[in-house]
């Protein structure tokens, strides 16, 4: 067997799957992942980990934040990880952990509760992370025209909005392809300004 030093490790790439509670994030991850979606858990305390701090134990609160994720291997060279953001939007720092340095994000929207994806849209706009909106077609939901969704979410004209079915592999694939194409276009344009803002 050849071990570590003799092999080139694949480069890992993150894609964020965001959206409100019940918008279909984990379903989408499961539909395209080559492995059964896994779950990471972060235990939060004042110390950042479950350290036994004898003083002030009475005040110590722990919270577990879970994220489901899946993987897609691209020819041994790249591995794509799809992270579903934690359901509770108050865990922004966890968003930072997956979103910063990511290729981009898919914001899943449920037209019955469109306002649920406002925080996600706002987050990615604020951080300059390329994103697309996937309108998950739930049965029984009124179908809106994509430009109506675009208007309702107050999106820039360049943000792609597409219909999708989070349970359907091909549909999810199409959304991811739209995202990668969009991100490629954006990064090519903003690359120079990015470098400047990072180094300043």
């Amino acid at each position, binding site marked *: 067997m050849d071990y570590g030093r003799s092999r080139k490790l694949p480069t890992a790439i993150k894609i964020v799957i965001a959206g409100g509670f019940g918008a279909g994030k984990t379903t989408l991850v499961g539909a395209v992942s080559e492995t059964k979606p896994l779950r*990471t858990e972060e235990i939060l305390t004042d110390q*950042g980990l479950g350290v036994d701090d004898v003083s002030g134990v009475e005040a110590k609160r722990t919270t577990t934040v879970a994220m489901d994720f899946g993987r*897609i291997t691209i020819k041994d060279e790249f*591995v794509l990880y799809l992270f579903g953001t934690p359901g509770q939007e108050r865990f922004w720092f966890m968003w930072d952990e997956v979103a910063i340095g990511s290729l981009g994000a898919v914001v899943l929207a449920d037209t019955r509760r469109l306002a649920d994806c406002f925080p996600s849209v706002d987050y990615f706009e604020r951080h300059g992370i390329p994103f697309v909106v996937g309108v998950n077609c739930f049965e029984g939901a009124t179908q809106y025209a994509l430009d109506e969704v675009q208007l309702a979410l107050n999106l820039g004209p360049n943000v792609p909005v597409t219909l999708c079915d989070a349970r359907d592999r091909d549909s999810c694939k199409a959304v991811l*392809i739209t995202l990668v194409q969009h991100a490629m276009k954006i990064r090519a344009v903003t690359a120079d300004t990015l470098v400047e803002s990072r180094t300043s």
Partner: protein
Amino acid sequence: MTTDDERWLDEHAGPVVRPYVMTSGRAQPVRGKFDLISVVVATGPVPIAEIGMGPEHLAIVRLCQEPLSVAEIAGYLDLPTGTVRVLLGDLLDKGFVMMQEPEPEIDMRDLRMYEAVLDGLRAL
């Protein structure tokens, strides 16, 4: 040997070994940052247990015979990522694993990467 009816048994008692025991109470790894998608691979076969190596250390080396991300290691071992980071720091320090940090954000300009990802997605 107790007759107390209110004993906590099995999973009701919580994990037998608490996460902080596995890390000897340490919250930060001795080495490395370990992003969720840092890729880790063992540098050799699973070592014979040695001082300072717990069963979780060995489990990680066993898992990482093939390259895996920090998030996957945590997921498969069902351990909090903070704990896994500390254990990985020990293994990195002792040379049992090697690691590759993800590309910095600036390299998102690499058009070749986008092309490869697009091809890969289309081929799914």
